[in-house]
């Protein structure tokens, strides 16, 4: 019980910074779709405060309202007092989950799947099999996306000279003694194996001789976001241990890198783990950051017209806005689309929970991609990439979607 109050009190401490002005209503992508009070940050923060003040009782409906949040941090960026509504929602979901008697079956299933390395591998295998058999289109809501591979990209856009050309020498900005490791996120492993292989190659290219191989665990964002905080803590501890003997940990999933970088925040009250968590967080590098710091130059600039969908966890989550664009400008003919940093509606399992709203957000995104005239929309997060592939499918071949590692 003390723990539960503690979770709610944590949410309330942050939410109390809310001045109830309403600035968030102008930027929240969900409020634009459903303009009622509980959609935007003001309404959500005040739910936490209403609960803390005893004005409201915990209810499924309230949990639904807390789940109706993309955790995209657009409100945080635009808030005069920078209230971290995403943190409030994570804590509120945890509190309500505990109060209402545990995690619902759907999230529990997802949590169990991603907690186990074996199950992630099995799913990856099953999805590969489905793609191989060409039956992945039967999976609901694009959960088994067909990947547009680097090979197809090269054959479509690269001149023959590029194929098989030696990698350009790279003036490495990473310390020559750095022990570098790749963090293979679950989404990348299960849904986008070609992209993950490209990332692995890029990491290896800039860590010659010092590449450490680690069989990592899930970053735990799914668990954290859906009231399974204990699982998150357990996974984080395992990852901290697994990567003890590395200096740099590179991940090609914006949600993983953003979650892992913030690990220490969840060990504030644990003196035993606090410092280790801090040290771990400092090692994390998103792949775009890693490649820019390593001075990566793509093998050759292709004629492909590229645009970038900026994952929430990359731009707002880590302030990495210049890096991916810099890399893409070197890789092809880069065009910035309108609203590049607006959430695509993927947001972990949001697109499963609220398919209609998610589809509407994605339709807007697709319009913007089409208007940019790009042939390829590039992104750096498997949830976003799955959404982008849905958009590509709906655009009837006007563009394809790829992971950034595949075009560099």
């Amino acid at each position: 019980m003390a723990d539960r109050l503690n979770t709610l009190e944590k949410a309330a401490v942050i939410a109390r910074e809310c001045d109830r002005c309403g600035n968030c209503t102008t930027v929240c992508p969900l409020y634009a779709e459903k303009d009622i009070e509980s959609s935007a940050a003001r309404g959500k923060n005040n739910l936490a405060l209403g609960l803390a003040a005893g004005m409201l009782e915990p209810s499924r409906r309230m949990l639904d309202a807390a789940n109706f949040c993309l955790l995209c941090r657009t409100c945080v960026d635009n808030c005069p007092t920078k209230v971290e509504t995403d943190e409030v929602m994570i804590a509120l979901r945890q509190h309500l989950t505990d109060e209402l008697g545990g995690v619902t079956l759907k999230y529990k299933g997802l949590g169990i799947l991603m907690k186990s390395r074996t199950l992630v591998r099995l799913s990856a295998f099953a999805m590969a099999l489905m793609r191989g058999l060409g039956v992945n289109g039967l999976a609901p809501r694009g959960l088994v996306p067909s990947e547009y591979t680097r090979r197809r990209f090269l054959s479509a856009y690269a001149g023959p000279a590029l194929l098989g050309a030696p990698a350009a020498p790279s003036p490495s900005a990473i310390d020559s003694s750095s022990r570098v490791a790749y963090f293979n996120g679950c989404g990348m492993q299960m849904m986008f194996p070609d992209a993950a292989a490209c990332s692995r190659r890029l990491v290896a290219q800039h860590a010659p001789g010092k590449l450490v191989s680690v069989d990592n665990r899930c970053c735990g964002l799914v668990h954290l976001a859906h009231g399974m905080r204990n699982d998150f803590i357990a996974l984080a501890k395992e990852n901290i241990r697994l990567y003890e003997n590395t200096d740099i940990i590179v991940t090609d999933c914006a949600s993983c890198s953003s979650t892992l970088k913030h690990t220490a925040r969840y060990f504030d009250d644990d003196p035993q783990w606090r410092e280790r968590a801090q040290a771990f967080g400092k090692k994390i590098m998103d792949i775009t950051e890693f490649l820019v710091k390593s001075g990566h130059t793509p093998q050759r600039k292709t004629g492909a017209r590229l645009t970038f969908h900026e994952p929430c966890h990359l731009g707002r989550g880590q302030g990495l806005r210049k890096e991916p664009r810099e890399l893409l400008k070197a890789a092809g003919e880069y065009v910035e689309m309108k609203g590049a940093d607006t959430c695509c509606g993927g947001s972990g399992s949001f697109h499963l929970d609220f398919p209609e709203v998610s589809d509407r957000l994605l339709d807007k995104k697709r319009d913007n991609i089409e208007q940019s005239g790009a042939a390829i929309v590039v992104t750096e997060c498997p949830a976003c990439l799955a959404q982008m592939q849905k958009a590509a499918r709906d655009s009837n071949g006007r563009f394809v979607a790829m992971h950034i590692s595949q075009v560099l």
Partner: protein
Amino acid sequence: MISEEIKQQLRSIVGPDHLLDSDIDRFGYSYDSSFVPFAEANKPDVIVRPADTAQVSAIMKLANHHAIPVTARGTASGRTGGSIPIAGGIALSLTRMDKIIELDERNMMVTVGPGMRTMDLYNHCAEKGLFYPPDPASWKYSTIGGNIAENAGGMRAVKYGVTSNYVMGLEVVLADGSVIRTGGKAIKNVTGYNLTQLFVGSEGTLGIVTEILLKLIPMPKARNTMQLMFPDMEQACGTIHSMLQSGIVPAAAEIMDQTSFQAVARHRKLDINPAIQACVIIEIDGDSQDALQRQAARIEATARRHNAIEIRTAASQAESDDIWAIRRGLSSAVGGMAPNRFGEDISVPRDAFPQVVRRIREISEKYGFTIAVYGHAGDGNLHPSVLCDMANPEHAAKVHHAIEEIFDAALAVGGTLSGEHGIGITKRPYTAKALGAASIQAHKAIKQALDPKGILNPGKIWEHDAREGQ
């Protein structure tokens, strides 16, 4: 309580998706942007979201028949509790009525629904080279209907006036559901009472505004922003006063004390010279860049005479936006400095501004509260924010005395309780003192004539006795 049968009738008017009555929704529509604490009694029974005038009219007929309270609201960005449904009943959310109905370029007028956001209206007109000047600090998210209800002001009032100066006509649904139109596009119009201006600033107590006709002016061709820093508030006020006296009328002249701008600096990671005690932000506009430069030079010379420490003229739109972001973020940033903030909105004759600021300093020392002061020095409207912790019994016991003394200071120099936020519920206890008993009687007579059952936003503006109900 509203019966299930009435709810069903309301649903058939607006459609089942646009009536909300879950506990979390009722709670979500029980507060606004004021410091009024949450209360069970402030939860509406239902939230109804009409799409057009006909629906509003049908809702009012039903509500009037059953004597159900109706409190209109836009985005609830008000600072005085004006849109809080303290008598329960229906919270009438007008955000779906957010369209431009007509932009009449030849007459330079625009007709708009009450739920449109002020900034969207501004942008829509600006695309055609037309200018809607009133810009309350909340213009990004406040609605034009709310601006009408509170007669919102803003930064540009010193040169361009406030909302009421632009309202040419209204469509209003009265308490019994009948629909009237006031005013019109004729610039001269003296047929009948000036009902338009009666509804402007009436805080939703006399009718529901469903359509608004606004006049526009040509967009100034050039605009720039200056930021002036001073060693004290006296010099800052003196600069603005000297400017206005010498015939320089800036589009906006905002002042803020050290406590205020430090609150924003905290969030924007700015380093500010500790010798600076006051900051003035000025917007200048005119026909050409040349004209602007001449104005800027004269302002700079005036500021130098008043010992300005720093003078910055924006070199780009981005820099200009940056300077304004400081001012626009003020209210919320100051609010975040203490558990409770009582943000006031007194307005005084322009030349009394420095005197009132001095008086507020004395009140701050007397009661031991930090009082952040910022506001529209150009038009005499200032926002003292009393920072306190209501969980501390000592604070709770004396904060209202401090506020009352601030009001007294304003009234003593011929000023008023509220310049632009309205009275709502937070300033209700002081209206009798500000207006006098006979004036309150006149208010009540008007209310009685237009809303005999007292269903429109009950309990606002003046203290209601038991007989009037809440």
